[in-house]
Structures are given as C-alpha cells and as structure tokens.
C-alpha cells in the first residue's frame, strides 16, 4: 500500500508538483497508518476524558496526558465488555489499531482492549510467578486432596467484616448447620494482607481440628485481589495440612491461590457450597434409606411368617390326629376285608352244607323204600336183618315208602346163598 501511495507522487514529476484532492491525501494517510507495523497493533496509556456513549452502542472518548490528546473509538460489538473500565478521569491502557476517520479528518485509535493502568506490569509479574510456581509443581492436579464429605469444623480465612463471610455463614446455615466455623480473621487487601492471610492459614493448621479451610474474599478489582497472587500465600495454601478451598472474587477471577488450592470455587458462596453437603439432599437420602429399612424389615417379617407357615404345615403332618385318622382308615379297610372274607367263607360253607345235605338225603333209607324196599322190625322195633333173628308166628312191623303194616310170619326159610 505504502509503495502504491509513493508511486502516486513520483509519476507526476513531469508536470510539476502533483496536486492531490483532500480525499486522495486522506486515503493516502489512511493507507499509511493501516499498513504500519506499529500503528496497527499498539498499547497506549493515558487518562480518559470526554467519554461519550451514544445510543448507537459505540463508545467515543479522548485519551490524554499532559501534552497531547488522542481520539479513540470502541465499536459496539466490543463495547459491552469494556464499558465498566472506562470512567472519565481514570488512567487506562488501551490496545488497538490506528486509522483515519475521513469525513472528520481525524486519525483515531480503534480500541479492542482496555485495562487499568499498571495492570499490564502486574500481569507480566503474575505470569512470571505463575510459570515459576507451576514449574515447581505447586499447581499439579496430582497433589490436590479431596474434601471431607461431612466436615465437622470448617476453618475460614477472610475479612471478619466483609459481606463474603456473611454469605458463607448463611450458605452453611442453610445447607449444613451441623458444622462449627472456626474463623481466622485476616486483612485481605493491601500491603499487609499477604502476611495476615499466611498467618491465618498457619494458625488454623496449628488449631488442628478443622477438616477443611476456606480462603475467601468478595469481588474487587485485580489490585484488590492481588494478595492472593502473593507467593507466600500460595505456599501457605500448598503447605496446609488440611485441604484448602478458595472462593476469591468473581467467576472470572483466577488468582495463583486458586491454582494452588485443592478446590477452586468461583465465589465465597461457591466455596461454602463446595465444602458442605446439602441438608435437603441428606434428608432425602435419609428418607430413602429409611424406606429401604422398612421394606427390609417387612421382608424379614414375611420370611419369618413363611417359615412359621411351613413349620405349622409340617407340624400338622406329624400330629396324632392325622395318625388317628390314618389308623381309622386302615381299620375301616381291614374291617371291610374281614367282612368280605367272612362272606366268602360263609358262602363256601353254605355250598358244602348243601352238598352234604344232598348226600345225606341220598343216604336216607326212606329213599330206598321208594325203590320198592321195605324195612322190617320186630316187636321191639329192632330192624330184622337175618332170618335167624325171627321165629315162626312172630309179629313184625313192616315199613314201606307210603306207610306201615303189621304181619305175622307164617314161614321162615333161610337162603342157601346169602
């Protein structure tokens, strides 16, 4: 660009000095500035004056010192995060690139970063110390300790009069009022702050009965928080025998003590939250543990009840009543068998008897008479079987099948071949 602009002048030498329009020379100046290595990336320090923040959202101000003024512009897109640091009269350092506002004929610094004067040096110092302590291993995650789940005593190092302490006490009261707070008061800003903070941390360690230490300070400027970047404070945090939780400034503030702490919380309230369980969570846990306890106990009772039922059942099986019933049934069976047997025997006897009767009947002498035989008895009723038992003229009694008769023997003849 610069080469091109220079060329614009050189080519006109043939016709005398070249005359440029206002726009032309202004464009030239603009091109010069925008291409300059220094002017396009520069920090400038001065005091803010004639600060103007129109509704467009852009910020216009003048930076001045004893000998000069400089017009500055911050475009809307970047304005919001820098607005707070710009106050008329404040000493600042601004970063940006130079250019020309052609219509106004003004060169301006287009600002993209603002910091309070002195911060730049502090920041360099901060980075150097951070690198050194980091190299020493003080910020390593490996040496960070976990916090007790149910602390009994919490040490707090902070200003005894600050809002931060009240915030932390309120938070602890609401979340976990079982703890006892051991306050080691300390001045937390100014020259003597680092030594006081170190002493407070050491004193809590000497006290010995705290489970965790909170190192806290409410929000403030970078300078206000500077004590927490002090090397001795960082070492006291590292050397503490109980875990240290930092809650320093706001969310965006990071001090070296934060890097060294076992846990870094964004604010004092955040630190109080980090070291304490929440009462409501604990009560809910208790509720569910108790419900489980009741369920388990009821299960136990149910088990015992089942055992009882089972034993009762076994007992019933062994009871004499069952045996008696059992025996009674066997008795019935046996009786029935006996009866069946008896009937059988009777039937058998009966048929034998009938046979015998039939046999007997076949032997009845009267049956023989039916076949034409007769029975002859003497007067005494004795059956006469031989002619030798009678004499002539004896009276005999004759029985035939259908009656009886008396007869007198008129002759007796003995058979020759009986």
């Amino acid at each position, binding site marked *: 660009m610069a080469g091109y602009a220079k060329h614009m002048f050189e080519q006109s030498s043939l016709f005398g000095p070249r005359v440029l329009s206002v726009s032309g020379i202004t464009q030239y100046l603009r091109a010069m500035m925008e291409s300059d290595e220094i002017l396009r990336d520069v920090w400038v320090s001065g005091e803010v004056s004639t600060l103007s923040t129109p509704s467009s959202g852009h910020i216009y101000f003048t930076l001045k010192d004893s000998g000069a003024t400089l017009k500055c512009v911050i475009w809307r897109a970047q304005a919001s995060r820098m607005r707070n640091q710009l106050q008329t009269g404040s000493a600042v350092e601004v970063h940006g690139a130079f250019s020309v506002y052609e219509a106004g004929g003004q060169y301006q610094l287009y600002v993209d970063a603002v910091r309070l004067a002195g911060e730049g040096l502090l920041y360099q110092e901060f980075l150097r110390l951070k690198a050194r302590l980091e190299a020493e291993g003080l910020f390593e995650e490996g040496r960070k300790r976990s916090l007790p*789940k*149910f602390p*009994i005593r919490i040490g707090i190092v902070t200003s*005894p009069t600050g809002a931060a302490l009240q915030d932390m*006490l309120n938070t*602890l*009261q609401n979340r*976990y*009022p*079982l*703890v*006892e*707070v*051991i*306050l*080691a*008061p*300390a*001045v937390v800003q100014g020259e003597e702050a680092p030594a*006081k903070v170190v*002493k*407070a941390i050491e*004193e*809590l360690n*000497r*006290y010995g009965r705290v489970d965790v230490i909170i190192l806290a300070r409410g929000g403030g400027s970078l300078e206000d928080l500077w004590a927490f970047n002090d090397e001795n404070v960082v070492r006291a945090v590292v050397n503490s025998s109980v875990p240290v939780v930092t809650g320093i400034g706001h969310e965006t503030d990071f001090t070296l003590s934060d890097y060294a702490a076992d846990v870094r919380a964004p604010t004092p309230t955040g630190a109080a939250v980090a070291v304490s369980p929440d*009462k409501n969570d*604990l*009560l809910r846990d*208790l509720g569910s*543990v*108790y419900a*489980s*306890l*009741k369920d*388990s*106990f009821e299960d*136990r*009772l149910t*088990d*015992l009840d089942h055992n009882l039922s089972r034993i009762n059942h076994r007992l019933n099986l062994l009871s004499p009543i069952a045996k008696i019933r059992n025996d009674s049934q066997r008795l019935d069976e046996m009786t029935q068998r006996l009866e069946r047997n008896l009937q059988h025997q009777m039937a058998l006897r009966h048929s034998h008897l009938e046979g015998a009767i039939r046999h007997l009947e076949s032997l009845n002498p009267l049956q023989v008479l039916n076949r034409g035989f007769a029975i002859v008895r003497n007067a005494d009723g004795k059956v006469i079987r031989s002619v030798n038992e009678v004499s002539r003229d004896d009276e005999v009694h004759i029985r035939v099948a259908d009656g009886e008769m008396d007869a007198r023997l008129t002759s007796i003849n003995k058979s020759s071949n009986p």
Partner: protein
Amino acid sequence: MTQLESKENLSYEQAFTELEQVLNRLEGESMNLEDSLLLFERGQFLTRYCADLLEKAQLRMQQLHVNLSSDETEEEEA
C-alpha cells in the same frame, strides 16, 4: 428418647454410616425376629437422630484471635 439414645453423641457421619450398615445387615443376613426387630429399631433411631441433627442444628462459630490484637489464640462464642 430412651436413656440409650440420649447418651449417644454420634457425628452425622458416624450415625449415617451406621445406618447404612444396619440397612445392609437387614437386607443381607437371615436372622431371627428379635435380631431383626433390634436392627430395625436401631435404624429407626439413627434415621431420627440424623434428621434431628439436620433440622435442629444451629451453625456455631468461633473466632481465633490470631491477626487482631495479639498472637495469643483465644476462643470465643460468636
């Protein structure tokens, strides 16, 4: 509260840890009615004890007089 209960001075952590142990035993072991009942009652007591601690506690504060007047460490109820 029974005498036994009033004598106890458990921390929340101790009480809650024991409560969990009681629950584990009641869930895990088979035992007779008396032991179950004793455990259940112990659990009931510990639950109540923990809840009481949480609900009735008031935050206490002591201040070490370390950085203020002298180096002597004093304690004082806040």
